[in-house]
């Protein structure tokens, strides 16, 4: 074959492909428009039925029929949307009724699918209609290799308060990135009793490298029963653990918290000192004012900033301490005091956030 013949073949192939692509674009648009025209009225119909059912004016059977008439992704979408609008008990009734529908069974079976998007579909479905019978499935999805599936499955924890699922989620927690961890924390808040039980056990694993992450998560729960556990860990050899403890204790105004924070404010690691100073400001116990005032002379800028902001929370006494520092001998404390006193209340509130 000559090079010219080769080029000719390539040119013809290209021309054919070009035509095929144009046809594909037009056909794709046409098919989608047709499908939309067919399905959209059914979705509107379902919304009307859902509305009536939510107000007690129609039976769940009508809802189930409406759902059955929709393509699967749209039916799941509708369920997700309406789950946020319908009261818990009433929604549970629908969830139970859905267990017997063939298409719902098919979706549930997808928890074992080899295709991740099918498992994701199943996880999303279960996140709004899971019952106690689904614990095994949700557990499998929680341990799925695709993060989107795990995330969707984690949402189920809000709905199914199973200790097995909570334990599985908590075991996974330290291995998750900070954002995913925060997401888990938000969904685990509802399963509080089981979570707290398990957390107390985890607090005892002092050598566990996952401990800082567990404490960070525990701190997000704002749960007073965990305070004792936090104070115990104030002397932990790991600075990251102490930092998380110092951060968490600020939410618990208690004598033991104050004692632990007064100890942590002298820590060798500046992040621990910064968090402890901040937390002392949150509690604002007048007895700790000297410690916070001293922190204003800390060698680390961030600790000084935290100290300055904390002093504001001590009211008049803290403000006086700042005014004294503003004309004091320590140059860095002077600069920080000047800076803090120059902030508007709005800016202070934003910094405190």
């Amino acid at each position, binding site marked *: 074959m000559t090079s010219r013949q080769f080029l000719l073949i390539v040119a013809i192939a290209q021309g054919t492909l*070009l035509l095929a*692509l144009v046809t594909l*674009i037009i056909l794709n*648009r046409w098919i989608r428009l047709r499908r939309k025209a067919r399905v959209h009225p059914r979705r509107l119909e379902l919304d009307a039925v859902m509305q009536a059912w939510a107000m007690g004016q129609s039976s769940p059977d009508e809802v189930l029929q409406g759902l059955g008439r929709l393509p699967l992704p749209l039916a799941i979408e509708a369920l997700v949307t309406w789950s946020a609008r319908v009261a818990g008990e009433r929604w549970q009734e629908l969830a139970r009724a859905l267990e017997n529908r063939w298409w719902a069974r098919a979706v549930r079976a997808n928890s074992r699918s080899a295709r991740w998007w099918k498992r994701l579909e199943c996880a999303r479905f279960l996140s709004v209609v899971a019952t106690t019978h689904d614990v095994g499935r949700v557990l499998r999805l929680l341990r799925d290799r695709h*993060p989107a599936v795990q995330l969707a499955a984690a949402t189920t924890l809000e709905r199914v308060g199973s200790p097995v699922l909570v334990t599985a989620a908590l075991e996974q927690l330290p291995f998750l990135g900070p954002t*995913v961890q925060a*997401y888990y924390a938000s969904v685990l808040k509802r399963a509080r009793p089981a979570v707290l039980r398990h957390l107390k056990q985890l607090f005892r694993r002092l050598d566990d490298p996952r401990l800082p992450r567990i404490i960070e998560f525990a701190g997000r729960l704002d749960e007073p029963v965990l305070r004792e556990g936090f104070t115990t860990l104030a002397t932990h050899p790991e600075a990251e653990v102490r930092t998380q403890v110092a951060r968490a204790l600020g939410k618990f105004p208690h004598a033991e918290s104050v004692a632990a924070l007064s100890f942590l404010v002298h820590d060798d690691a500046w992040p621990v000192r910064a968090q402890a100073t901040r937390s002392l400001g949150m509690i604002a116990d007048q007895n700790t004012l000297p410690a916070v005032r001293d922190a204003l002379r800390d060698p680390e800028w961030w600790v000084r900033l935290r100290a300055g902001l904390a002093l504001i929370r001590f009211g008049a006494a803290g403000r006086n301490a700042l005014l004294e520092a503003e004309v004091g001998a320590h140059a860095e404390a002077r600069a920080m005091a000047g*800076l803090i006193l120059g902030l508007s209340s709005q800016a202070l509130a934003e910094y405190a956030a």
Partner: protein
Amino acid sequence: MSVLIHTTDVVILVYFLVLNTFYALLLVLAIPEIWEQTRLAEDEDFQRLMQSDALPPITILVPAYNESATIEASVTAILTLEYRNFEIVVVNDGSKDDTLERLRHAFDLYEVPRTYPEAIATQPLRAVYRSRARTRLLVIDKENGGKADSLNAAINASRFPLVIAVDADTLIEPDALLRLTRPFLLGGQIAAVGGTVRVANGCTVADGRVTDARVPRAFLPGIQVVEYLRAFLFGRLGWNRLGGSLVISGAFGLFRKDYLHAIGGYDVASVVEDLDLVVRLHGYLQRRKIPYEITFIPDPVAWTEVPESLRILSRQRERWHRGLIAGMWRHKGMLFNPRYGRVGLVAMPFFTFGEMLAPLVEVLGYGITALGLTYGIVNTSFALLFLLVAWGYGMLLSLWAVVLEEASFRRYRRAGDLVRLILYAMLETFGYRQLTVWWRLRAFATVWKHTRRWGDMTRKGFSTP
């Protein structure tokens, strides 16, 4: 003479084949990527995410230089984004117009002392302002130092761990931040995420939002719609599977702030700061063997106004290419260097030989073909056939970008827009492509001047309903 022309012909032919094979590879790799991203985008529960406090707080950096006409609308639009926890740092880079006055008046600014250390050195700050009306807003007024310097000043002032650089003339879609944080939510070791930038010309804009996406009727911005689709929907998506792109658009990219600090922020000496930043980021993370991903996701969208005149477009393209040449030259140590993994062995060679040198090779190709025809060394019908194939391939790539758009996001709903998209994809090869080659070629002549400017562009403003 004949041997020289033949040898050059063969070299160009091989270059053409290798480059286009690589483009084909990117195209193929973009398919599973867009499939996965579309599925994830469709299944995302935004309502739940909006209510959750799990998403990381973000600082939006808005450098502004002579943006008086659009600054108020842009900042207002950003302030109303659907995201729970974010702040905006607008940096007035010594504007000669009344950008600062506009901001001061619109958002009731009051001066506050600086409350953060200058982690990255910048031009002196004149003042820092907060807004009485919008507590999320911080405005910095500083001496002129260029876009990179402004971004560095904004990074210094930012409080949150993630920062996103947004051009003051860019319109971000309301849910774009929510979408942009998806890779973080999926637990990846994310260093940076880029979103799609689309052309706002011709679209209807209301309250800083694109309410009706249209493909412009005017030829020049219309062609750029296809260019942007091609660059974002298959170029960058394909790179996700090849170890990450070297470009996260400066107009819309989310970065981890600690990494930006580690590399000293944006380089004020760079012509195209976004490319330079991403290359340095790759370099830093690869050298320290830190696991990371620099990824692109297509569904978060920002809209930008593109040049409508040849003069401004030519300046923009020349500047972009000048930045590419300077960037590749500056980081030449990474080229073919196995220490930098796929970035050194795949991305850098592609951007150097496939992107940077492409206009030179293309012009050489045209020249040699003309010479060969003149001396009767190259057969006329063969040369025309070759040109047809080369152009046809360009058309196929553009059309493929339209296919990806249609199969995934379908922003342009009207049939007329679709027809225009197809037409522009077909016409781009004839004339426009050669013009861009010429503009990029000029960059080789001007690169030594080390010009650093904001890349002035006359804004027409967005059309209102």
